């Protein structure tokens, strides 16, 4: 079975981002999606801490300690970028001004519920950051996550087990095994990797899946 690597998952999600889109990428795996945007597309990346036009990580010698991304890593500004304060950054999110938020997740349900902020682990204080704002605010919200946990537990659920970030917010799901859309009729598989058949995919998924008639193989270059 040709399960995608995490970089290949990011590559696949990047192919769907349209030219001209204003996009917020969540912390972690989603952040790497910006590495794989096709060169002929101009995408404006937004950061919660007051940046539009966020660029790649700085080259050695070009670091600026006052310029960080939402994950607190050093970043850069592209020509045409702008700075603003936190209220404006979240007005852009909550007010529906962003075309897309692509977020990591612990779980996604078959109705598009998202759980990505806490696992209720008593060893750690919970933190929510901007996750709930992004989930309810962007024009479209997509999730990118491994299909199952390290111990094989499905992450694509009938109902999320972990506390919700927001209900009914996810429209498309990218995993290492499949691309799925959340529809009125539940989860529809648009793409699945070669070497897995639909019964096997269903077997590692708690939510009920439907295979699209025009489904395609999910493949990504070795990135």
């Amino acid at each position, binding site marked *: 079975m040709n399960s995608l690597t995490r970089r290949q998952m990011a590559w696949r999600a990047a192919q769907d981002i349209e030219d001209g889109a204003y996009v917020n990428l969540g912390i972690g795996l989603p952040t790497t999606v910006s590495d794989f945007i096709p060169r002929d597309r101009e995408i404006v990346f937004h950061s919660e*801490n*007051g940046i539009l036009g966020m660029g790649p990580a700085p080259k050695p010698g070009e670091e600026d300690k006052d310029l960080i991304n939402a994950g607190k890593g050093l970043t850069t500004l592209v020509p045409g970028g702008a700075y603003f304060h*936190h209220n404006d950054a*979240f007005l852009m999110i*909550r007010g529906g001004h962003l075309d897309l938020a692509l977020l990591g997740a612990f779980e996604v349900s078959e109705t598009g519920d998202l759980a990505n902020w806490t696992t209720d682990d008593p060893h750690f204080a919970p933190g929510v950051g901007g996750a*709930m704002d992004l989930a309810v605010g962007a024009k479209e919200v997509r999730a990118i996550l491994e299909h199952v946990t390290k111990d094989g537990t499905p992450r694509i659920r009938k109902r999320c087990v972990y506390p919700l970030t927001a209900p009914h917010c996810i429209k498309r799901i990218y995993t290492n095994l499949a691309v799925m859309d959340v529809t009125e009729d539940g989860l529809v598989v648009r793409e699945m990797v070669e070497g897995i058949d639909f019964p096997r995919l269903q077997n590692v998924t708690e939510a009920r899946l439907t295979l699209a008639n025009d489904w395609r193989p999910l493949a990504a270059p070795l990135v």
Partner: protein
Amino acid sequence: MIDKRMRSLAEAVQGVKSGATVLCSGFGAVGEPVELLNALRETGVRDLVCVANNAGTGDEGLAGLIKEGRVRRIICSYPRTVDPHCFEAAYQAGKIELELVPQGTLSERMRAGAAGIAGFYIKTSVDTRLAEGKELREIDGERYVLEKPIRGDVALCRADRADRWGNLTYRKSARNFNPVMAMAAALTVVQVREMVELGALDPECVATPGIFVDRVVVVREGREGEKP
């Protein structure tokens, strides 16, 4: 004559009382007024309610106040940021209360506090644990949760440049929570990298007008209180 310049960090934080609600700016350590927070710690105040995006990084600034047990309650969106060991120790020991607020709700609650708005309905957190116990209301077919304003007794902020009227400019992503916190407190104290002559700041570039600012102190490479 208006002159908001302070000679020292100690003078800048003078009068803050135990039990105060302190708005602590910054996103992680960027834009955090570390030296002002250290000076506040040195005054001996306790029982503080701190409002911040994170709960301190390393051992200085907000982390230092938490480390010494001066913070009774923290209102923040994401307590565990880079090196949060002071908060973690206090939290695990049950020595600090945590009120978790979504980041956009946190900044909007302060904006409401600044703007004289008694509350607002927002869709963030509806149908989640963070909306439990709050009033829900349906408006034009969509459900919202009522959120109330936050005002500080004092705001501690950090800016790039200031003049003696307290007009402020910021640098890059160090702006973050500074403008809204500067607006939302009874007493706003700002540490800046550089003080300039009145009229030297481009009015088009002033991000916080001086009306919101009460005290300004220069902190340049660890030095304080320089007056031009």
